[in-house]
């Protein structure tokens, strides 16, 4: 089905989020929608699903005008969206999540469809498992399968590759192409140009809520980058290796539960100043390792030693880790690291060590505004954390990070961030933190790992299968290790 937006505008109070958007996506094609964080891509798509209302303009499907007042109406028309942040029910099972929103069917039929679809996409999903035990990527997989199962004919994908591995990406892309051959219209929201180039027939660029560019394949990258950012961000050069010092973190034959397969026989020493990239398929054990080091989960066997002292196996571990100036920045920033309904200035006040009894609104606002300017957060001191875009949430987290941190653990630090924000995050981590700070980060982007780390650990099914200096390995070797090829 063809989708046409005509003069779409959206205001949030005084803010004009979208202005005069005209766009046409043709049946059987993949239409890319690119732009930096906060450009209005997600808002435009939420309008198409009826999740948000539009302030002006009209939407036409196959030439006839549609109202799209609710997601129910949109779903009846065959419009479905994979949201960037998982829109699911963590305490229900995979099967329940899969079935909610689809027309009623018997449980055995649903189970069969789920298993068939996950085989087709090379996903590993267990119908009875609780969704809260899964990674963000796996949760998105369920949602994607559900949309396909629900006979969606206009499929909106908001950053679909954020949580999935390169291997799964390779399985996903042909399927998306196949779906369009069957007549599906796909709208792909992304900020990764490679993906867009590999998949899309047409691309529209949004910047500050307006369309700045529209083109058909083949794409000319500098042109797209210019439309996205105004000026083209330069890819910073590979940075100099850093001096390493004493061991700050060590794992000794650690066995732990977590993610898909937990972590097994993990022995590891991390030295001050090292930047270690944790590569692996989604859920292969990287997050478990980071959470163990942060004292958020405990090993079943073996010891985690942080700055010379063994972390206890109870909830005081994370306090001890924090007292040792260890910081953990999770991938799900809003859920695990920030408070939805607490303002930015209050976030800054909360981190003060010896807060005064009375909270001075004015003083903390002034201080917060200074930090907001330093970290160029797009938001005001009195804004709520939930109103920030993904990139600005990450900036806020870095602003809250103790600049004297000795060990920083990051779970997918550039998740959902555009190129410029991502570069900014790394520039901060490398240059603004003390040079003897050890940094451990996981990322589904192999390029990010190869570019920024000094040392690479590759995880496969809960085990570290490769531990190498970045100069002694290469893209193909790491990719092979990730998929279990020795």
């Amino acid at each position, binding site marked *: 089905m063809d989708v046409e937006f005509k003069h779409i505008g959206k205001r949030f109070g005084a803010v004009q989020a979208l202005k005069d958007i005209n766009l046409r996506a043709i049946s059987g094609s993949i239409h890319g929608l690119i732009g930096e964080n906060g450009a209005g891509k997600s808002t435009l798509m939420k309008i198409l699903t009826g*999740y948000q209302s539009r302030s002006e303009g009209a939407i036409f499907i196959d030439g006839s005008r549609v109202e799209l007042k609710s997601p129910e109406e949109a779903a009846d028309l065959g419009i479905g969206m994979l949201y960037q942040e998982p829109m699911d029910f963590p305490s229900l099972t995979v099967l329940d999540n899969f079935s909610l929103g689809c027309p009623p069917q018997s449980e055995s039929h649903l189970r069969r469809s789920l298993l068939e679809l996950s085989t087709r996409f090379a996903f590993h999903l267990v119908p009875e498992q609780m969704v809260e035990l899964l990674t963000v990527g796996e949760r998105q997989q369920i949602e994607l399968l559900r949309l396909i199962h629900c006979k969606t004919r206009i499929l909106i994908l908001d950053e679909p590759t954020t949580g999935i591995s390169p291997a799964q990406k390779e399985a996903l892309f042909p399927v998306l192409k196949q779906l369009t051959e069957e007549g599906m219209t796909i709208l792909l929201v992304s900020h990764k140009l490679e993906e867009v180039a590999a998949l899309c027939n047409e691309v529209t660029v949004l910047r500050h809520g307006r369309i700045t560019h529209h083109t058909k394949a083949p794409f000319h990258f500098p042109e797209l980058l210019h439309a996205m950012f105004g000026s083209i961000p330069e890819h910073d050069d590979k940075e100099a290796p850093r001096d390493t010092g004493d061991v700050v973190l060590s794992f000794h034959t650690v066995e732990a539960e977590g993610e898909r397969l937990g972590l097994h026989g993990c022995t590891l020493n991390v030295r001050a100043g090292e930047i270690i990239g944790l590569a692996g398929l989604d859920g292969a054990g990287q997050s478990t390792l980071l959470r163990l080091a942060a004292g958020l989960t405990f090993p079943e066997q073996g010891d985690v030693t942080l700055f010379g002292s063994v972390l206890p196996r109870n909830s005081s571990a994370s306090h001890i880790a924090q007292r040792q100036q260890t910081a953990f920045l999770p991938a799900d920033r809003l859920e695990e690291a920030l408070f939805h309904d607490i303002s930015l200035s209050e976030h800054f006040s909360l981190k003060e060590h010896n807060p005064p009894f009375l909270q001075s609104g004015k003083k903390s606002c002034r201080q917060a505004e200074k930090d907001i300017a330093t970290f160029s957060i797009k938001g005001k001191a009195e804004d709520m954390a939930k109103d920030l875009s993904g990139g600005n949430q990450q900036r806020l987290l870095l602003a809250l990070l103790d600049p004297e941190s000795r060990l920083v653990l990051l779970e997918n630090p550039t998740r959902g961030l555009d190129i410029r924000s991502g570069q900014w995050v790394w520039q901060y981590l490398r240059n603004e933190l003390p040079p003897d700070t050890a940094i451990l980060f996981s990322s589904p982007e192999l390029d990010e790992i190869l570019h920024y780390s000094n040392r690479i650990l590759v995880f496969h099914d809960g085990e570290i299968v490769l531990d190498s200096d970045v100069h002694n390995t290469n893209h193909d070797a790491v990719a092979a290790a990730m998929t279990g090829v020795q």
Partner: protein
Amino acid sequence: MIADLPVSVLIASVLAASAPLIIIALGETLTEKSGVINLSLDGVVLFSAMAAFAAAKETGSLGAGFLAGGCAGMITGLIVGYLSIYLHLSQVAVGFALSLLCRDLAYFLGNPYSRIQGPTLLAARLPFHDTLPSFLQNILSQPLTVPAALTLIALLWYFFNATRSGLALRSVGENPAAAFARGLNPNKVQMLAVLAGSFLVGLGGAAYSLSLKPGWGRPQGAEGIGWIALALVIFGGWHPLRVALGAMLFAFLQVSGISLQNIFPSIPAQVFQTAPFPLMIFTLIFMHYSTRKSRISTKPANRLQRRLGLLFMSRAPKSLGKSYQQE
């Protein structure tokens, strides 16, 4: 068993005493599963008990009494639902205020019906009563509220775990925004759950004034039951079966308190009357901790464990008590 009470009589009295409490607690479970807390329970129980007795007295019909009780409950549900779901007022504040209002209103409006005789739902005898051994005769001659309450446990469990509407209701209680994104109408689902739940609470109230503690007065005898029901829902982990078992445990404590009083006449009667409340709290805390480990490890290894899990495992709906506003 306890004192000179035969086991069969004890079981019979526990069943009879727990039936109204089960109905009330399950009504609240239904409401809370959708994410709305109805704190007005205690006042609503009294209000519907009064309404039921008055209606039964005026019409002479028990059916009309129960219907009036249920409707009285539903009206309060309508108020709680409208104010908290559509006007986004605090569920806690609305519930509390309504609880006090309903209690006073019940005493005020019920004054003319105080301490008078009215229709009472008596224990029904099964058609084959005489052929049964006396042990079963004792247990099985119960008022209709008992089989109704027991059926309700199974019905509610089936509704939550096997029906589409039950899944929709649970999903709204977990994440209303996601439910909305999938084409459900969270406000409507919550409103229906509040209405159905408060209707059950009203029926439970009616079961007090028409069966368990027949008549109306001040005190009626159902005071405090609403709070106990709220506690049962929480400690029962929002699981119909566990909530009902908790209600039976409370009834057991009440019944055994009465017979203990006969054995120890020197201890003041008030001790035995109030003992069930603190004892209940201790037992529930004990239960909570003893089942904690099994609730934490949520990886079902096989089909049997999954079935058992469905039977017993459950916990708070994630969006409980939060007001949902569409973007």
